[in-house]
């Protein structure tokens, strides 16, 4: 969490291997990761859902291709060394769409422009699930969506976190969402971590003045956990 310009998205991009940090390193299960040029397996383990669903899917590719290219690259479908059949890929794509609440088989042949923002964000989440990641980074995944759709996407992320055993790194402005969805909260300001605590501890004692102000400001609006 943190105000705009605090460095939340930058931190997410560093974790995802998109940019090189000025200092420090990214550890996954205690193992240091290269800033950008990671192994294929390291790429597979950390996936990211972006803020704007309108630009997060390749407009010239079908949904089938968008969902299948990751699983083919990382060979997460079928026996290793054997390219899965088109039928098997289609079946897996439909399973992935089902996981994110999309069930129309016609979806696979269509392109991203045919879908609403919420549907595109679901497809973007399905794409990440195709490679069985361990960590899912969600960079304000609902900020570009309607309020009603925001809740659906957050519900979906909460459910996937449980059913898929995903570690979720959620970037949000909404303390209520953080309270409902996260085990730990990190507040950032000016590119550094101001506080990093368990959610329970944070709400009991936010710590530094900036975190207190943030909590107070959120309380004056509402920090009631939403329906996630």
């Amino acid at each position, binding site marked *: 969490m943190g105000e705009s310009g605090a460095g939340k998205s930058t931190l997410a*991009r560093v974790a*995802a*291997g*998109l940019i090189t940090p000025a200092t420090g390193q990214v550890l996954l299960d205690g193992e240091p990761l290269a800033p950008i040029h*990671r192994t*294929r397996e390291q*790429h*597979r383990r*950390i*996936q*990211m859902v*972006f*803020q*704007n669903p309108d*630009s*997060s*899917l*390749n*407009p*010239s*590719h079908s949904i089938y291709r968008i969902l299948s*290219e*990751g699983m083919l*690259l*990382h060979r997460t479908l079928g026996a290793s060394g054997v390219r899965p059949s088109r039928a098997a890929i289609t079946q897996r794509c439909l399973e992935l769409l089902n996981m994110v609440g999309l069930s129309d088989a016609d979806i696979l042949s269509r*392109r991203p422009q045919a879908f609403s923002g919420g549907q595109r964000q679901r497809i*973007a989440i399905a*794409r990440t699930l195709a*490679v069985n990641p361990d960590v899912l980074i969600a960079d304000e995944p609902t900020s570009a969506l309607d309020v009603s759709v925001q809740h659906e996407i957050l519900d979906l992320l909460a459910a996937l976190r449980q059913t898929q055993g995903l570690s979720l790194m959620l970037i949000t402005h909404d303390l209520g969402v953080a309270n409902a969805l996260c085990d730990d909260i990190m507040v950032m300001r000016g590119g550094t971590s101001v506080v990093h605590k368990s959610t329970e501890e944070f709400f009991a004692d936010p710590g530094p003045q900036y975190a207190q102000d943030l909590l107070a400001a959120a309380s004056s609006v509402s920090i009631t956990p939403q329906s996630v």
Partner: protein
Amino acid sequence: MKLSHDRLPSTLVAGVALLIAIVLAVLIIPLVSPYDPTAEDISSMLQPPSFAHPFGTDQLGRDLLVRVAAAGRVDLALMVGVELLPFIIGTAAGLIAGYYGGWPNRVITLLSDALIAFPFYLLVAVVAFVTGTGITGIFLTFLIMGWIIFARTVKGATASLAGAEWVESARVMGFSDASILVHQMLPNVLSQAVIVLVSDMVALLVAIVTLGYLGLGVTPPTPDWGTMIADGQSFLSTRWWVSTLPGCAVVLVGIALALIGDGLNDARRQS
């Protein structure tokens, strides 16, 4: 750019139909005509269009219909062949410059700026001086100059997409830069490059014909529209068909390509 038949722009349909008709004509006429495009017949010099010679004959008695068709084979094949390599090189250079920015962009921009500042027909004359007139000179000249327009178009389109989240998604997924360029970026910028390709072919055809007209292009006896126009220039006021009909062939191809270019542009905007 994916098109469905029910919304193909009419300009595209008309352009493709016209181009197919022209290509079929230049392929079939030399096969079925009783005349050899290079065989001279002094007894039939400068005859006007007739049933025996629908386009008339030239100053050496050669049938102009079969010569226009044979020249079409040469010029159209040259146009496609000469454009293909610059298209591939320019598209690749534009992708690299647009995607990476930095020094690859600076090198490619500097090179293209330096080349584009060089007068085209002066370069033709220099290359023709080195290689001699003919197809090799045309090919080399267009190879040196032709890639620039594709590089600039594709560079701009690629740079505007390079920061898109779907590109970052592909990086997070672990795709290599080469794979991102070829499989992710190229499908999104190719349509613009193809539109430029079709438009550029019109300019290329005019340049090929102009070089033939100036005696720097295809060398006789190989038939070529530019050479034919130049050959008939002396008789233009009395034997109009010798220059005019090859010129009409050039105009028809130009119209077909312009219609295709417009149609592709319309289709791209629709999609």
